[in-house]
């Protein structure tokens, strides 16, 4: 996930801003990490470079 994505993505639930916690980066890309909603606190994983912004109840359904 390129960091420029932060400009336009938001929490799928309340559409508020997300905060990025990058745990592994490679050439400007975040490979592993977490996106946390600055409003509701919901967490969304970034895995293998792909952010998973499904609502939490759909993530494992």
């Amino acid at each position, binding site marked *: 996930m390129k960091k420029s*994505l932060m400009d336009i993505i938001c929490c*799928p639930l309340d559409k508020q801003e997300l905060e990025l916690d990058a745990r592994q980066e490679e050439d*400007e890309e975040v490979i592993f990490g977490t996106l946390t909603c600055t409003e509701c606190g919901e967490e969304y994983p970034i895995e293998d470079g792909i952010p*998973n*912004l499904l609502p939490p109840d*759909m993530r494992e359904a």
Partner: protein
Amino acid sequence: MSVREEFDDWAADGRDKGMEERHWHTAKHVLARMPVEDGDTVLDLGCGSGYAGRAVRDTKGAGRVYGLDGSPEMARNARGYTDDSNVSYLVGDFDHLPFADDSIDHVFTMEAFYYANDPHETLREVRRILRPGGTFFCAVNYYEENVHSHAWQDSISVEMTRWSREEYRDAFHEAGLYVAEQDNVPDRETEIPAEDAFPTDNWETREAMVERYREFGTLLTVGVAP
């Protein structure tokens, strides 16, 4: 079964590429119509293998392209098919789009829209994320007038919405989108055997097959955000 479960399986056994090949026959004509300006941001809803986003980057000078899919395996495959750092894939749901208001110039979707849990909500979401004047190119092969598609639901576990041409227009209007055009985009490439090959495994008559591909093809509805 959920979208994730159903389509993770499809991605795992290569059906992402199979769909790409078949859908390209009409999708390329739909993509050609999109008024993408240099630097525009384009979103592909239900991107599957992600071919549409790559094509828009290659042919249209789009700035950034995002493919969203509810299936992590689809998104993973799509990501693997490109090195273009301006094409990104995300996992997400049609009814809960993770994009800010007015953040997208054009939304494209091919053979995916009708899987939405609530297509009316999807349309409201699309309208929300489009900037004023932004376009929504919504292409489907599964719709009411295409009688040859009606049986598809039997083999797919995700519930599908089967609207008519008019229901598409009405739903766009309800969601506050202007309807700019509606069209049947014919598939002129799927090979149709000579008369004496019918009935085939899939087609009773040649006329039915001609109607399905050459006449009905893909139903395109284009919306514009006010």
